[in-house]
């Protein structure tokens, strides 16, 4: 199943020294724990023969050494294993980022619902646990099983075989049994958890409806319907786990009994030999801890498997682009010619035969009902999508040939610009990482945020997390606009940047946008007519076709539909 795994296998080869060190320390921890009981047992048995003090000197020293060694090794093991896992995590994060980066243009469409991005990040967390809670303990316990069997085999091969069998029950049989019983139930529980979330979210987000419908009993039933099923199932799991642990512990109890019998049969020939009885019997007890968590760790395997599946399933789409060209210093026209688009030959045609031309410096408004292909058209202009037929060209060269350094050509301001959780300055500077503080200040002044930012305790160095609460939707758009001013691309695509803003904020923002982008070529997708009069041309997109295209003045004078919408929007 995981022959082509790209997320665990390659990383196991990284930092092998640390990995080896961590496992070795894990083994040493338990060896010391066992050896402490071993030497103590021997020390007491031997002392009871009342030898000279000098004779017990070595076991006394060893007892202390092992007593100190156990916690020291355990402490080091924890540090080293965490260090290794965190190093691997850094690699995994970069890798996940790089895989997603290839599809960055569509990340919102593909991963936004239900916070898939958060889940992918969680998947990496699960792999961390796979290492720390399952893989490492199992490997350590396996090594201990081998060492213990070999050590006893030194004296008695027959008994060593029995011991190995008893330890294998702990190492293999119990975890496998647990996994076999629980795997299906865990999968079902995952589905139930999801249902419980949906139901509870329905209840909480739909609360005002529930309240005025006055259906409190139905609300309680609905909110806890799947939860009750989930609780019943987890209860069964808990019962099983308790039972599994009981059986595993009872099976473990056979080991000291076997040791008592074995030592009695083989180590009581002479007094010297009998001194080792306590040592051999007591050594086993600390080892219990090495085995007791394996079943639990292995039980988590269904979760890890799902995470690995998610991560391995991510395959970025590959696109064939023409030979990339350098961005021209200036341009005259951007032409959209007979452009049609559908995602797949079977899918619905989203855009049909769209043609228009924008001259340098012009401002074009693109209107139309939502879901009618406006954003798709912008993606085609940008070159994120390849047209089914027709093309988008700049002075005759397809925009697909400008993808490599596209940010020098196009800037985009969309509905919800992303503001990173860093300082205001760093957010604005994303537009141009070489920008000086003065340039950042200039951009912020252009978008009329200087006064607001001056009031913040740390000015432009204020982190967004602290300032974010104070920034309204309009102000966030202004910050994103400042970023675009620094980016300084000749063509700016605006994708409904004022959606969700109240009309006063909207009007102010539109004014700022048009003032600051005076020299730029602008293609503006909008859902309102507010500010459209400032444009050189208005395009109406309906059912994937251009149905009106004219200057706003002409439309206002002669087109009744435009007049009607304009009057409605203006509130007249």
């Amino acid at each position: 199943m995981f022959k082509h795994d790209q997320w665990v296998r390659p990383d196991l080869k990284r930092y092998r020294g640390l990995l080896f060190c961590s496992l070795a320390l894990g083994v040493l921890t338990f060896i010391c724990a066992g050896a402490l009981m071993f030497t103590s047992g021997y020390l007491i048995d031997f002392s009871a023969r009342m030898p000279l003090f000098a004779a017990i000197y070595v076991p006394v020293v060893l007892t202390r050494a092992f007593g100190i060694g156990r916690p020291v090794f355990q402490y080091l093991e924890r540090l080293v294993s965490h260090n290794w896992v965190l190093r691997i995590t850094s690699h995994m994060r970069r890798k996940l980022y790089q895989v997603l980066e290839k599809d960055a243009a569509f990340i919102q469409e593909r991963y936004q619902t239900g916070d898939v991005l958060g889940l992918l990040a969680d998947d990496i967390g699960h792999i961390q646990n796979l290492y720390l809670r399952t893989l490492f303990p199992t490997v350590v316990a396996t090594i201990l099983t081998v060492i213990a069997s070999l050590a006893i085999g030194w004296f008695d091969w027959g008994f060593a075989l029995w011991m190995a069998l008893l330890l294998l029950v702990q190492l293999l049989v119990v975890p496998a049994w647990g996994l076999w019983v629980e795997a299906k139930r865990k999968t079902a529980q995952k589905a139930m958890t999801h249902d419980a979330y949906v139901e509870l979210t329905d209840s909480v987000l739909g609360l005002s409806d529930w309240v005025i419908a006055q259906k409190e009993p139905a609300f309680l039933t609905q909110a806890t319907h799947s939860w009750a099923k989930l609780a019943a199932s987890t209860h069964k799991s808990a019962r099983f786990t308790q039972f599994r642990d009981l059986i595993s512990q009872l099976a473990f109890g056979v080991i000291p009994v076997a040791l008592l019998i074995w030592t009695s049969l083989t180590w009581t020939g002479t007094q010297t030999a009998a001194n080792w009885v306590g040592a051999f019997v007591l050594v086993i007890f600390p080892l219990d801890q090495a085995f007791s968590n394996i079943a639990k760790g292995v039980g988590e395997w269904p979760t890890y498997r799902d995470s690995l599946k998610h991560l391995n399933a991510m395959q970025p789409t590959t696109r064939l682009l023409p030979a990339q060209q350098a961005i021209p210093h200036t341009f005259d026209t951007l032409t959209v010619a007979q452009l049609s688009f559908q995602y797949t030959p079977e899918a619905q045609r989203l855009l049909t035969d769209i043609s228009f031309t924008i001259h340098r410096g012009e401002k074009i408004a693109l209107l139309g009902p939502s879901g009618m292909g406006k954003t798709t058209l912008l993606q085609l202009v940008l070159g994120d999508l390849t047209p089914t037929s027709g093309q988008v060209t700049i002075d005759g060269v397809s925009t697909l040939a400008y993808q490599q350094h596209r940010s020098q050509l196009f800037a985009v301001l969309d509905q919800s610009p992303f503001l990173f959780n860093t300082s205001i300055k760093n957010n604005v500077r994303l537009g141009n990482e070489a920008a000086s503080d003065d340039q950042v200040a200039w951009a912020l002044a252009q978008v009329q945020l200087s006064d607001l930012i001056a009031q913040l305790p740390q000015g432009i160095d204020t982190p967004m997390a602290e300032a974010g609460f104070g920034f309204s939707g309009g102000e966030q758009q202004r910050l994103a606009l400042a970023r675009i001013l620094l980016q300084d691309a000749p063509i700016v695509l605006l994708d409904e940047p004022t959606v969700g803003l109240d009309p006063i904020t909207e009007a102010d923002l539109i004014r700022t946008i048009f003032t600051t982008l005076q020299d730029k070529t602008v293609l503006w997708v909008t859902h309102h007519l507010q500010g459209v009069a400032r444009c050189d041309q208005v395009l109406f997109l309906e059912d994937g076709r251009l149905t009106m295209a004219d200057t706003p003045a002409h439309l206002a004078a002669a087109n009744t539909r435009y007049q009607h919408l304009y009057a409605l929007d203006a509130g007249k």
Partner: protein
Amino acid sequence: MIDKRLLRLPGVQQVMIGLAILTVLQAVVIILQGHFLALGIVHSWAQKALVSLWPFIWGFAGAFAARQVLTWGRNRLAENFARRLADKIQQRLIKQLYALGPQAVAHAGTGNAVTMALDGIIEVQQYLELILNKLLNMGIIPWFIVGYIFWENHLAGIALVIMFPVIILFMIILGYAARDKSQQQYAGFQQMSNHFIDSLRGLKTLQLMGISKAYADNVYAVSERYRKQTMGVLQIAMLSSFAMDFFATLSIAVVAVFLGIDLLHGSVSLYPGMVCLILAPEYFMPIREFGNDYHATLNGKNALAAILDLLDQPAPQLRQALPAYTGWQSDSTLTVSALNYQYADRTGIKDAAFTISGDMNVALIGASGSGKSTLLNLLGGFLQPQSGTPFVVDGQPVADLNDQAWQAHLSYIPQHPYVFADTIANNVRFYRPEADDAAVAQALQAAGLTDWVATLADGVNTRIGEGGRGISGGQAQRIALARTLIDQKRSVWLFDEPTAHLDIETEAALKNTMTPLFAGRLVIMATHRLHWLQQMDLVLVLDQGQIVAAGAPAELAAHSTAYQALVAQMRGEFDV
């Protein structure tokens, strides 16, 4: 570690007593287990034949098995109890969410509430399970064991007793050090652990800026910085369990050496020495487990505290102060006077007074934050004024409108109406589950959804909402309209910005559907879309929580400077 409210939870004390009895039994069998094992070893050491060992071997096996069975029983008992209690807490929590109402829940954060009622409850259950057993373990088992050890060998017993407070002391000191260190770094931590998700969410922006490829190294570098800081904290945090282990194992070593020397001098015999050595690790086991699980229980403890805080919040009582009110009639009146609402940090509504009667259409207008939504929520009863009796409904004064009769006859449609994860038909039937298919079809017709539903393969049985078919903002509004229309007795309609987020053509179409439906109903709409004003009989202009103008739109347009100024501002570019 322990919230005092924990002990006041129902049934906690009873189950503690049950568990305590089992724990005492367990302490006894642990001693028996050590006793028989020691006897077995001693006899073996004395070179006795296996035959004479059998009683001890059986004794050990029996005690060992009894101990495991007791552990199993305790876990079962604790799990049963924790599960039932967590269930009860969840029921109470969900009841409380309902009682607090949508406004209070939205204020606390809906995502928060959902997480609290699911993940939070799971964590609470684990916490209850762990804490009860571990606490009792630590409170009972070591003392029985050390008592027995002391009885067998005073010196070993004293050494172990002395070690206990030393371990606790170190745990506390190191625990504090770790906490200080991690608190210092917590802010930075959060920032860095969120940085990765932040980078993924912002990928599109990075790509548009042309720096997404190079940013991969930044992702790596930040993750590495996070690793180094984490290791710094772990070094200290893990010291506390190190110290615990260190003292525990060292004590065992010390006890072994003491005993060895005593034996050497012949002042003790082998049995007491052996049994002390066997029992010494058992003495430390409970505190080590307690320490190891400490961090695991923190989340549960915090979740429990958060839930108990929410449960302690006073919830508004649903009133039944309007027994005579049977719905809004054409001659009904609602008089509002001296209405005030104060948020924790700002004024919501100040001294509002107005009268609404019959099937008026009322608009609430004003800049963002002027109090439109607050006023609408007060009229819906979702918020309650803190004092006074500002409402008079058909001659009956009431302190707030969180009233059964009032709410049974109103509907509230927000900007983003919630669509339940269910079929279209069941979404429409929400207020009247008994409504038949014909009624659903009629409501869909009136809401202008018939054509759209006809295009769907499953028609009204198409699932929408989470996990179902996606629907547009306009369609969601229409679903909400149909939901209201199916329940004829709901004749007061409250709208909060129903069309602001829609594109102009969808808005025009939706408006055409809505306006005929206003006839014969009281409509109150908070809006900043000016075109609605033509439909209105009364416009209330709000500014910073106060009604600064009220009247018919034509009248206000002619005489009110506040209205004129606001409209001019809202019209913005259209007047350019």
